[in-house]
């Protein structure tokens, strides 16, 4: 069976682990538990008529305490760049990280994930102000690990993009 490596990237506490748990185990925990290092999960999805095993690398968030090792990205087919829109800084950090990844890995499928859409009234990000928009080629998806909204779609669209990319 085809396997594709997906990395979850973004600042700490944006909800990367919660998105993976929602996607793989369909559960959500309100309590924030920081990730140390990497946790790898797998899930089989259907893309069209093809079944693909997604190998999900949930990588710790970057901050002053932990920097991401670029070697973690080796063999990656695509990534979800996760942002917490209730914290404006996480978007800036995410876009800076995306530039580093692109420089190191070359063009690769990715999706900007605006998580925590269940708290949209607290968002500090105006979608019109960010480069990639929902209508442009670069996919931007709103998700909520809490409610599950947009989670399947985010992984599914990334899987499609990975399969169709050279």
């Amino acid at each position, binding site marked *: 069976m085809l396997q594709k490596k997906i990395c979850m990237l973004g600042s700490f506490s944006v909800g990367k682990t919660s998105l993976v748990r929602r996607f793989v185990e369909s559960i959500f925990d309100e309590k*924030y538990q920081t990730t*140390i290092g*990497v*946790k*790898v999960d*797998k899930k089989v999805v259907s893309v069209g008529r093809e079944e693909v095993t997604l190998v999900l690398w949930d990588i710790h968030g970057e901050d002053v*305490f932990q920097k991401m090792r670029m070697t973690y990205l080796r*063999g990656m087919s695509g990534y979800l760049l996760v942002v917490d829109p209730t*914290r404006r800084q996480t978007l800036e950090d995410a876009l800076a990280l995306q530039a580093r990844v692109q420089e190191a890995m070359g063009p690769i499928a990715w999706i900007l994930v605006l998580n925590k859409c269940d708290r949209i009234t607290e968002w500090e990000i105006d979608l019109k102000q960010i480069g990639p928009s929902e209508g442009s080629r670069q996919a931007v998806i709103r998700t909520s690990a809490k409610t599950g909204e947009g989670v399947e779609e985010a992984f599914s669209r990334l899987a499609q993009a990975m399969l169709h990319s050279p």
Partner: protein
Amino acid sequence: MPPESIYDAWLAHEALALFESRGGGVFEPLAPLPAWCVSLWQVGQDKSVHLAEKSPFLENFLAEAEEFWTFPAPGARNSGYWVEQDSRGQQYPLEASAIWLAGKRVLTVRSLPGAYQGQQRLFQTARDALLMHERLLREIEKKEILLHCIIHDLSQPLTSMRSCFDLLAGKVTPDAAKFVMTGHRESQRQERMIRGILEAFSADLAGEKSSAQGTTPSADLISCARRAVEQFAPAFTQRGIQLLLAPYWDFERGSRVVGDAPRVDRIFGNLLENALRHSPAGSTVEVGLEDGGPVMTAFVDDQGPGLPQDSSRDRLFALFAKGGDYPGKAGLGLYFCKMTVERWGGAVGAENRAEGGSRFWFRLPRAPQESATPSVPAEVNSSAAPVAPETAWKPADKGRHIVVADDDEISREMVVEVLRARGHTVTGVPDGRAALTELERVKPEVLVVDQHMPEMDGLAVARAIRQREKQTGTARVILIGLSGNASGEDERRAFEAGMDALLGKPFEPNMLFQAVERGVEAPRPAAQPSVSAPPEDLRSHLTRMTAGDEKLARKLVAGFLADFPTKLTAIERAVSRRDADGLASAAHRLRGAFSLFDPHQSTLAARNLEIMGRDRRFEGVEEQFRALSDDLSRLEGELRALFPQPASLKKSSRGRARSHKKA
């Protein structure tokens, strides 16, 4: 125990899986594998295994390991933590290392639940703190936005109020005009306070959000204390509480401390507001400073009920803390003091005083001389014209408690303001009896008293004071007389009554300072300008009289323009009724105010009218009245040219002046 057994026991104890790379992704255990390894990867103890197939993470890391084994370097290549889960859901935090050992390419994989959890706890705490800090900054930001909205909403009606007061100023009776002026002044003060709050909180926010390095700000603690006392004096007076500035400031090293003046002003303001809330009527609140070598301490002493028994410092100065049974505001004031003072490396505290009441204090480090930046009072910042530095008064070496008694409000205000600007603590009263009452209550060191006041004039006040001092043995008060008739005869009578000095109006501020501060060295009455002296224009005259304080000059001019038509009407009425006493009194009162603005010495007509009234002569009185009206009309024009007044006010008072001229 044979060495092999010790070795195996140690490996088991460390939960360490030890493999040798045989190339092609194949690994062979070098020792018995720990239980976690067997459970997680389903590997046999003595069989070769393709580790890359067992673990995606290891597959990734083995590429790094191969690189290390191919191009050896000192030490080892570590993978960092990763977590894997077995078929039963059991999670294993792992760390792998590639090393060269006895010529073998060795891979170690270790399960480290204890170390992993320790690191996780540490990072969890740190990241929780970061998140809390982010949330706090966002809350502060929201509060700042809210504050801006509140301030905008509060300021808007004040603008309308001020316009209304301007419109009213020339259309009401003299008594009501005083209230209008007070309302105008208070609305301006409130606007400044609102702006000050905004600036202080904005500065706090900026300080909270950035750790930008800048030069150490410094503030003159004495100036801040004086400003605070002046600002709060009316509120204390209204509540029947006496507010004093402790008069023992002789700091050899100056009084500059670390901190910026607007926020030090606000700290004093918050402590005074606190004292105002808790002090009973009839009590005294004193502001003072103490030199503590490398630090300076400022305090506010009250005679209130003291601190609640259960109040610790932390509780008193906590956010949203309110004094038990006493009405307060939002509980932000003392918290602001603590937050601000501690940021500058100072401390804040409160304690009960042995003699009753409480002391609230704050302590700040002295400002380094090289980093001392001049403190610019907010009033000067907001003033349209800067104070001319060459004319600004230096503070007195020692502040004194002074009472000023003058029935003419403008003259009184002028004297009060120039003495306050010099650094003295000054109370103004409108007549001789009030001066005696104030003398009992305040026990000032100096009394400045106008010679000519209704009911009890300056001479009678002086005699009463000296007699009382003789009877009671109380300390001698320095008595300074002010007179528009400072002739040799007047001077003789003043000294006979017990005065220490007599100053002629208009007096030079420096002569007043000399008299007040040296007391017994009575200066000669104000000399008339020398004939050979170059003529002085009105602007220069006002600048000299107010030491370049344009705000004070503007205030005095506004008061005079609002007031003189009423006084002129009183003279006119006395002239038409041939009321000698009324003429003498009204002409005297107008002359006092007139002389402050008169560089041309054109108050002669007013003086003549006063003498006519005293002598009960009315020959030529109409000519003198017309001359006075002409003089006032000219002065009014010059003053309005210097300080344009609102159109409505202009029209109103001019209209009155014209009607007087016609009469």
